[in-house]
């Protein structure tokens, strides 16, 4: 390390400390590389500070408040009051604990932390611009770089996140009062997760979505129970409507939408949250100076070692494209670090699990039946409905099902889709099964604890084989 001219040298420069970057840095540290991790905002990135963690904390808390107030069926009578500022404060405490942990773990693994915005000067040099007045910048020379600058919410023309009643998901998760009413633009997973939070806290929620269904990209029968439950919670859906603008009106605002025929509709509310997707963050970086290319959507294309077109510069996480998920970012980060250390690592996983933390939850991994057909397999499908699961009934949440897709001749598992209680956890076993090259018989023959939701996984495998016990077979 050269000091004096405020210039530093490092084996690996990691830019951005989200679940991609901080994991890459820790892994590189473990592999005895000299690592510098630069972050311009907050350790943990979008996921820990404004995304996965805050949303899941608010989901649990709003869920508990709602459940307790709606359990007369179980003989429980309660009328919970929610202090939103305290709920948000609790959520912030969880976030602080985790981001503090990230910082400690990075240091314990020998990672050098640097606050500031990094931009490339050339292929082997970056400038780190410190924030705050007069803190200047310094130059870091690197052998390898890992770009993990993440993504940001897409702004819809007419909706400026700087305006007070217009919220992105981050701002919506930091409100200190429960809004009386809220228009949500976009019925993707972020919109649907937060619709649940606010509806359960008593907000009148209206969702406007340009496409014609909730959770575009998920199969109909997975999305249906989520939409049904949201409707039961009072969420008002308007499909085929593109949000075009908003204006103040009385105490609140009016949001204007337009459908395909050009018909204009108006929705009154206290606030509007826009969640129509996320775009890669590359404009903070001066990528050109390093010769790193982006595609037409602004993502940085990478190969199966997470390398960009410049071999010693890797890109991982949201900035490197779909699927934009924290655990994919982390996996790519591990692989990038291992590749730099000379290990024979690659992104050769068979299947990526994903979860939507709506009510009920959705968990998916691998192929759908249709995708399996397209790939040339002869899929067989096994299904088990949670209303036949003893454990599900004892929790009072028995909507949904487990579905397993396998190749019929060989029995190999190809994919699974779950909608229902703890779908996000249940999908883990199926992810392992797919990675291991397990067959339906392997899953069906494995003893599963009674009474658990995981029995539904076993039963779905048995159903595909034609001998489920707790449901009728095809």
């Amino acid at each position, binding site marked *: 390390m050269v000091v004096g001219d405020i210039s530093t040298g490092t084996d690996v420069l990691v830019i951005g400390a989200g679940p991609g970057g901080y994991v890459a840095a820790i892994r590189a540290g473990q592999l005895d590389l000299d690592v510098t991790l630069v972050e311009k905002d907050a350790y943990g990135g979008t996921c820990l500070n404004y995304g996965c963690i805050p949303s899941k904390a608010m989901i649990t808390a709003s869920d508990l408040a709602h459940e307790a107030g709606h359990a007369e069926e179980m003989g429980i009578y309660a009328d919970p009051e929610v202090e939103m500022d305290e709920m948000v404060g609790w959520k912030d405490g969880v976030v602080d604990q985790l981001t503090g942990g990230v910082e400690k773990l990075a240091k314990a693994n020998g990672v050098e932390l640097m606050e500031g915005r990094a931009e490339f000067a050339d292929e082997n040099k970056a400038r780190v611009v410190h924030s705050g007045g007069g803190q200047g910048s310094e130059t870091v020379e690197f052998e390898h770089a890992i770009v993990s600058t993440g993504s940001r919410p897409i702004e819809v023309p007419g909706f400026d996140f700087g305006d007070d009643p217009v919220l992105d998901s981050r701002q919506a998760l930091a409100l200190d009062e429960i809004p009386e009413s809220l228009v949500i633009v976009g019925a993707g997973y972020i919109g649907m997760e937060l619709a649940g939070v606010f509806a359960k806290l008593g907000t009148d929620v209206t969702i406007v979505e340009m496409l014609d269904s909730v959770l575009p990209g998920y199969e109909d029968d997975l999305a249906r129970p989520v939409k049904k439950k949201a409707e039961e919670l009072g969420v008002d859906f308007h499909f085929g409507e593109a949000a075009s603008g908003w204006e103040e009106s009385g105490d609140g605002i009016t949001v204007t939408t337009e459908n395909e025929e050009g018909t204009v509709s108006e929705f009154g509310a206290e606030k509007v949250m826009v969640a129509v997707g996320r775009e890669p963050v590359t404009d903070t970086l001066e990528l050109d100076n390093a010769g790193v290319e982006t595609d037409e959507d602004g993502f940085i294309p990478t190969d199966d070692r997470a390398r960009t077109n410049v071999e010693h510069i890797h890109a991982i996480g949201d900035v490197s494209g779909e699927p934009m998920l924290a655990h994919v970012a982390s996996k790519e980060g591990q692989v990038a670090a291992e590749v730099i250390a000379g290990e024979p690592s690659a992104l050769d996983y068979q299947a990526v699990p994903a979860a939507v933390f709506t009510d009920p939850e959705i968990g998916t991994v691998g192929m759908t039946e249709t995708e399996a057909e397209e790939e*040339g397999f002869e899929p067989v499908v096994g299904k088990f409905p949670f209303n036949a699961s003893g454990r599900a009934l004892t929790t009072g949440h028995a909507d949904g099902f487990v579905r397993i897709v396998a*190749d019929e001749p*060989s029995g*190999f598992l190809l994919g699974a889709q779950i909608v229902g209680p703890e779908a996000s956890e249940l999908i883990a076993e199926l992810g392992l099964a797919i990675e291991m*090259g397990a067959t339906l018989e392997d899953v069906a023959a494995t003893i599963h604890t009674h009474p658990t939701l995981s029995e539904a996984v076993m039963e779905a495998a048995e159903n595909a084989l034609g001998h489920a016990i707790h449901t009728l077979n095809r």
Partner: protein
Amino acid sequence: AEEVSTGEGRVFAAPSARRVARELGVDIAAVDGSGPSGRVTEQDVRRAAESADTEGESGE
């Protein structure tokens, strides 16, 4: 060993077997699997690597 299922480019093998294949420079998609339904085991990969070595030595 049986044929591994037909889906394109898809290999049925545990992550550990796939890692060993990369380590030994074996194209795992070309390895005959001895496991259930033709699943490729780590042993299959090692055997394939050994026979490739001997082929290489005999100049193909």
